């Protein structure tokens, strides 16, 4: 029996399987994504980038920035905490409820706790346990709430509040996610470093902004010219010594566009697929992104 045609058919089916699975199916599933209203706030997301930032995306592509920077935040787990927000009036009931959670809560500790509300009373637990605890506390007349926090080393670095999802890239073309992190992830660069001028100075001479940075300078995106040779100019405010006296460094349109693009990188709204909650206020620094941006001089 000549089973050549059979081999060919089997190979064809095997290969078309992956084509259907990873080309056709994702396309049906993800290409039809629409802007959605974010959870609660009713803000439409995502919106396209402003025109200049879109041009900046092309500068980012043309210089191969994707070789060294990724644009996706990894979330390893989702942590739950319980935060006590209001002690209520029934001290005894609340005390016994708290003892039930953790036997270390004696009257002294609880009195300390009562002074500095809101306070986290249960750390790093599952959602079911957190919900049960909140119910227990509420029954005692106090108020508590569950705080849902995405976690992982990327999030601890302040690269984002949550993982990246398909919606974050809806209007980018090309989408450049990157696979190697020689430098930091840029998915939320605009939230950490919103200053366009910082980015311009950093592109011109990275080491002036971040000591010991291994990033190469992109001086060709700038023009060094005699002060006064062109009437309107917005020179960079660079440290002395980098530019000869009597000269100024002016960003070319590409540099401005690239900086605008970098500032426009923000993907931290809450979507159905990425639940999280902000810790209750007044606990001071506990909320929002703990900025771990590189040391800014």
């Amino acid at each position: 029996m000549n089973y050549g045609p059979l081999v060919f058919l089997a190979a064809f089916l095997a290969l078309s399987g992956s084509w259907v699975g990873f080309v056709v199916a994702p396309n049906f599933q993800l290409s039809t994504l629409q802007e959605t209203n974010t959870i609660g706030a009713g803000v439409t997301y995502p919106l396209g980038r402003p025109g200049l930032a879109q041009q900046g995306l092309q500068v980012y592509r043309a210089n191969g920035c994707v070789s060294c920077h990724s644009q996706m935040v990894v979330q390893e787990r989702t942590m739950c905490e319980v935060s006590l927000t209001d002690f209520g009036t029934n001290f005894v009931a609340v005390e016994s409820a708290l003892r039930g959670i953790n036997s270390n809560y004696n009257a002294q500790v609880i009195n300390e706790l009562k002074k500095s509300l809101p306070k986290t009373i249960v750390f790093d637990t599952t959602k079911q346990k957190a919900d049960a605890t909140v119910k227990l506390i509420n029954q005692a007349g106090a108020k508590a709430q569950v705080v849902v926090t995405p976690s992982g080393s990327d999030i601890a670095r302040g690269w984002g509040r949550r993982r990246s999802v398909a919606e974050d890239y809806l209007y980018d073309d090309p989408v450049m996610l990157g696979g190697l992190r020689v430098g930091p992830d840029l998915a939320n660069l605009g939230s950490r470093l919103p200053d366009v001028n910082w980015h311009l100075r950093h592109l011109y001479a990275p080491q002036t902004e971040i000591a010991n940075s291994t990033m190469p300078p992109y001086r060709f995106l700038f023009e060094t010219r005699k002060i006064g040779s062109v009437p309107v100019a917005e020179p960079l405010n660079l440290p002395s010594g980098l530019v000869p006296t009597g000269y100024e460094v002016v960003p070319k349109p590409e540099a401005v566009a690239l900086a605008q693009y970098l500032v426009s990188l923000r993907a931290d709204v809450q979507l159905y697929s990425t639940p999280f909650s902000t810790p209750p206020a007044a606990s001071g620094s506990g909320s929002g992104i703990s900025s771990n941006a590189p040391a800014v001089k």
Partner: protein
Amino acid sequence: MSNPIRSKAAPTSPQQEDLASLAHVPIWLFVLLFLLTFWGMYYFDQNSGWFNVQVYTPYRSVAELKLYQPPAGGGNERGKAVYENICALCHNVDGMGKPNQAPPLVGSEWVLGSPTRMARIPLAGLAGPITIKGVEWNLAMPAMGAALSDDDLSAVLTYMRQSWGNKASAITPEQVKAVRAELSGRSQPFTSDQLQQIP
């Protein structure tokens, strides 16, 4: 030699072999294949969310994702989310305001007072001097709430009136709708004096 190409032997005629001689594949390779396939199916079942477009790692199923959603209802969650997204930038997450940016909302007579008066501020904006808890502020607030739906705006106003120790009545979407209808066509922000005249 008629051809510089090395003459190769004709392939050992494959027609004589048949599929039955799969025995030439070691049996342990098949065992491994089946074990791995079984593991693969189990792993997929446990982790993939079964092709759901909303389920991303580290969530493993639709049910797990649903569990982590913020509680529905209770108005305040919605109000809190809107507040933190829009208002908290200037008024701060704790409602205490920021110097030279926005006055506090905690204990403010404008927040705790008449609902229809309070609703006018986000819908049309506020400019010029205004006294809050005995302190005079002179800043301008744009019509931050004009783009919000009645539901979202009433939720966030209620959140302000009932959080951080504030205790005042809730504001309903109907009240917001009525105020919005009254203000249609208005492009100027309110001043402190104009607001005083609202009951």
